[in-house]
């Protein structure tokens, strides 16, 4: 065995604190080490060339690179070994930067520690075995959970590359939150005008399948081979027979608050949420339908000319396989009823930004009239309050919801456009308008639309003589402000969906203290998750405006396509391996495995002439976490790359 040790200076990162020459000198004296060298940047091309040449010239068969964390450059050096013609897994890294030079000051001591770390790595590599990569097939289909603007964009991108994609949307129509918006900032494009073409595109694309009124129930498997159970809730209307003529809801006698119109308008019990819904097929709300409640009415079934109404339709559960999953489940609105000082959500004329979107929409419940929900009178003095729930550690969430400053500015503008006599007052903490043309937009709202911006919080809202008295502070002038308002619009923040944690657990992806899904790396892998093959887009990861949601949607699609385009999926060989002779079949490993990667199988024991039950690692699923090796009482499971032999050798070298 001929081991080569390569010590990196990492510029001054290591060399300043660790005497790298001393380390190389000491390494050269270790048993089996035939060559030791230092170089300024081992990861640079000349550094790598140095390793390749040394392997060839000195016939080295094991390598230790004494440099940074293996997280950063292990792959680089494995490639070096491959280039030099030896097995890529015969390299060990001794981390003398993060674990040594960066955390110590005393050069003598640090050098001593670096030598120790190298000694351990040499001991470990001496027990390394050549390993081969494994390959698994890929199901060439993508699942998108959520049919809002993020999900729609992802689907369009994937379908464009001619790969099949399935959207699962919980609501009766795709479109998500954006479908309910009036205009979009800062360009004031009509939201429906730019969204609905995308909705139509996606619904007409032959590579896209859309399951609306459906939910993901269960996800098993792993990258390249996910098995997903989807519950298609019974809409009681046949998707194929229905033409969307609307005869049914024209006759339905039930009137309930419309969710799409935020309770400002009514809908029937059989309904499409909005006119441009995709699919344009109604659904029956069983909780309010007279047929389902009392076996009465039945008007919709009578009037449907196509026989599309099926009262006894049942939920259907389908199972499909996918290679990758894009999570696009979006956000929900912060519930402002925790603010007692703003009336605990009880004042009818204290509404949220989403209510305002519907109200200001000319095809909305008020026909575009800015009207007080309490009495329908037109609202002249409108107070907008920023940061409801956002940036409030006591009652809400600590983070900034990013879009509220902008949508409030938009609302103030639209208010003036709808009624030139109306006046907007905006209470803000800071104005965060960091986007292309955003600051200009806010400025325009202030200068040209006369919105009065007041820097401060509102301490109290109460009703008096038909008005809402809004009390607050203007911290710039130091004055107390009292405004007699007709309407108050709260800029409620964006928070995770109520069931976000459940979905994250189902998908084995992490989420943070705010139940927002966690990306693999906040800067360098913003749409990936630690679970291979599962990607994030839109506000389920953090609050996002439409451009950001669309950008992350395309990013996630590219990541998914990058997987799908492979013939087969390369898997690292650093996984667990069972010695069936030693395995007692106790199943401790099965319980310990967080990925369901261990199954039991029967094997023939020739010596005893009987069968026994032993553990078997499912190759494609094992992530090499090592839990099973730690719980195995028989030492029957070994983790490749971290075998018992390697670890013991390392310990003995200490």
């Amino acid at each position, binding site marked *: 065995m001929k081991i080569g040790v390569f010590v990196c200076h990492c510029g001054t990162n290591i060399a300043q604190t660790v005497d790298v020459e001393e380390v190389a000198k000491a390494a050269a004296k270790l048993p089996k080490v035939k060559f030791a060298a230092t170089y300024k940047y081992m990861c640079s091309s000349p550094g790598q060339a140095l390793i390749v040449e040394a392997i060839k010239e000195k016939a080295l068969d094991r390598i230790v690179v004494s440099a940074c964390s293996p997280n950063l450059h292990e792959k680089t050096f494995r490639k070096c070994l491959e280039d030099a013609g030896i097995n890529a897994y015969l390299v060990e890294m001794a981390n003398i930067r993060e674990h040594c030079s960066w955390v110590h000051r005393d050069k003598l001591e640090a050098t001593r520690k670096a030598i120790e770390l190298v000694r351990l790595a040499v001991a470990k590599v001496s027990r390394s075995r050549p390993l081969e990569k494994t390959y698994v097939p890929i199901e060439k289909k993508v699942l998108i959970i959520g049919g809002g603007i993020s999900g729609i964009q992802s689907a369009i991108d994937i379908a464009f590359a001619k790969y099949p994609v399935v959207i699962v949307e919980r609501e009766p129509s795709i479109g998500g939150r954006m479908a309910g918006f009036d205009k979009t900032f800062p360009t004031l494009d009509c939201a429906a005008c730019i969204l609905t073409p995308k909705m139509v595109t996606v619904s007409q694309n032959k590579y896209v399948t859309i399951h609306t009124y459906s939910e993901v129930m269960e996800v098993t498997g792993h990258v390249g081979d996910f098995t997903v159970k989807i519950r298609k809730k019974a809409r009681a209307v046949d998707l194929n027979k229905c033409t969307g003529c609307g005869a049914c809801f024209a006759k339905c006698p039930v009137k309930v608050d419309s969710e799409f119109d935020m309770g400002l308008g009514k809908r029937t019990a059989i309904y499409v949420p909005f006119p441009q819904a995709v699919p344009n097929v109604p659904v029956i709300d069983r909780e309010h339908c007279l047929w389902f409640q009392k076996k009465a009415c039945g008007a919709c079934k009578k009037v449907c000319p196509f026989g599309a109404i099926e009262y006894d339709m049942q939920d259907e559960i389908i199972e499909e396989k996918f290679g990758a999953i894009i999570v696009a489940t979006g956000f929900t609105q912060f519930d402002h009823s925790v603010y*007692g*000082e703003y009336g*605990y959500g009880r004042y009818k004329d204290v509404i949220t930004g989403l209510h305002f979107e519907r109200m200001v929409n000319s095809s909305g419940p008020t026909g575009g009239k800015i009207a007080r929900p309490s009495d329908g009178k037109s609202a002249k003095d409108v107070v907008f309050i920023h940061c409801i729930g956002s940036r409030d550690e006591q009652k809400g969430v600590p983070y900034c919801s990013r879009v509220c400053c902008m949508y409030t500015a938009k609302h103030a503008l639209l208010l003036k456009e709808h009624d030139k006599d109306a006046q907007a007052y905006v209470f803000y903490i800071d104005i965060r308008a960091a986007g292309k043309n955003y600051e200009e937009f806010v400025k325009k709202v202030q200068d040209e639309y006369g919105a009065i911006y007041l820097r401060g919080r509102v301490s109290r809202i109460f009703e008096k003589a038909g008005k809402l008295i809004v009390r607050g502070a203007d911290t710039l002038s130091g004055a107390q402000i009292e405004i007699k308002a007709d309407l108050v619009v709260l800029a409620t923040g964006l928070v995770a969906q109520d069931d976000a944690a459940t979905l994250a657990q189902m998908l084995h992806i992490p989420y943070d203290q705010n139940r927002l899904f966690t990306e693999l790396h906040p800067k360098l892998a913003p749409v990936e998750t630690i679970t291979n093959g599962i990607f994030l887009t839109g506000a389920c990861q953090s609050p996002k405006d439409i451009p950001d949601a669309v950008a992350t949607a395309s990013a996630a699609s590219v990541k998914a396509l990058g997987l799908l385009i492979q013939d087969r999926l390369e898997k690292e060989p650093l996984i667990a391996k069972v010695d069936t002779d030693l395995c007692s079949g106790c199943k401790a490993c099965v319980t310990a495995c967080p990925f369901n990667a261990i199954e039991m199988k029967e094997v023939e024991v020739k010596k005893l002439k009987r069968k026994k039950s032993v553990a078997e690692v499912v190759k494609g699923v094992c992530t090499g976490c090592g839990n099973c090796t730690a719980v195995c009482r028989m030492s029957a499971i070994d983790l490749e790359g971290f075998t018992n032999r390697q670890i013991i050798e390392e310990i003995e070298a200490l």
Partner: protein
Amino acid sequence: MKYAYYPGCSLHSTAKEYDLSTKEVASALGIELVQIPDWICCGATPAHITMHLLSIALPVKNLLQAKKMDSCEVVTCCAACFSRLKIANEFMKRDPEHREKVEKIVGEPYRGEVKVRHFLDVLANVFGLKNLKEKIVKEIKGLKAACYYGCLLTRPKDVTGFDDLEEPHLMDDLMKTIGVEPVKWPYKTECCGASFSLTKTDIVLKLSCDILQMAEDEGAEAIVVACPLCQSNLDLRQGMINKKYNKNFNMPIFYFTQLVALSLGIEPEKLGLGKHIVSPMALLKKKGVVV
């Protein structure tokens, strides 16, 4: 039901009628109030604007006195006393640094173990409104009153914690029980100016005027309070307010205990009603509560 009673300075002076009516209500309901022997200042304004440590050490001294009694809980009527005693308990429970200093001053260990209640809390939550209803002999009918809680009774929430922070309702519930009609009004927890009464009277006049105006606007014939400072600002200063702001208020300011006592059939003479600056007698006669 037995409590260590902490009256505080106001109830022995400007709010004598609060003290009288509280004791009357308690005895009529069989709630035994045993005054804490040798009680001292609660640590309110004069102390806490002087020295933070003093404002904790004083109430702790009182609480230690109460601890030595056989009744386990302290009850108080003054919102400021209530606040000081509760806040001192919080510090002694949670802040080891303060605890150490205060224990040195008072010479005894204390960890905030003596429970403190406001008398409103005792009536509404411990004795219970249902039980109270059974004891009522004479409902006070047709009186529209604004229940005014003031700033200290419900705040800070983590310390007081017996009623809703922004929209308290226990006094309203209590008033409804005895027949009074509480009006819906938004100023339940506004500031009356409190102890600025002497040093910056103008502030008190403005703030208390706003409160009186709001009560009147919302149809109240009287205001019901649970704090001697609120009572004194709204009652004692009413004349000055009328003069300064050209108003014509004639709004009696009751302690909730006075009205409860009347509903329990206690003679009006025992309740210190004559001590009010704005006499409530005409209103009470009009409503047939007194003859």
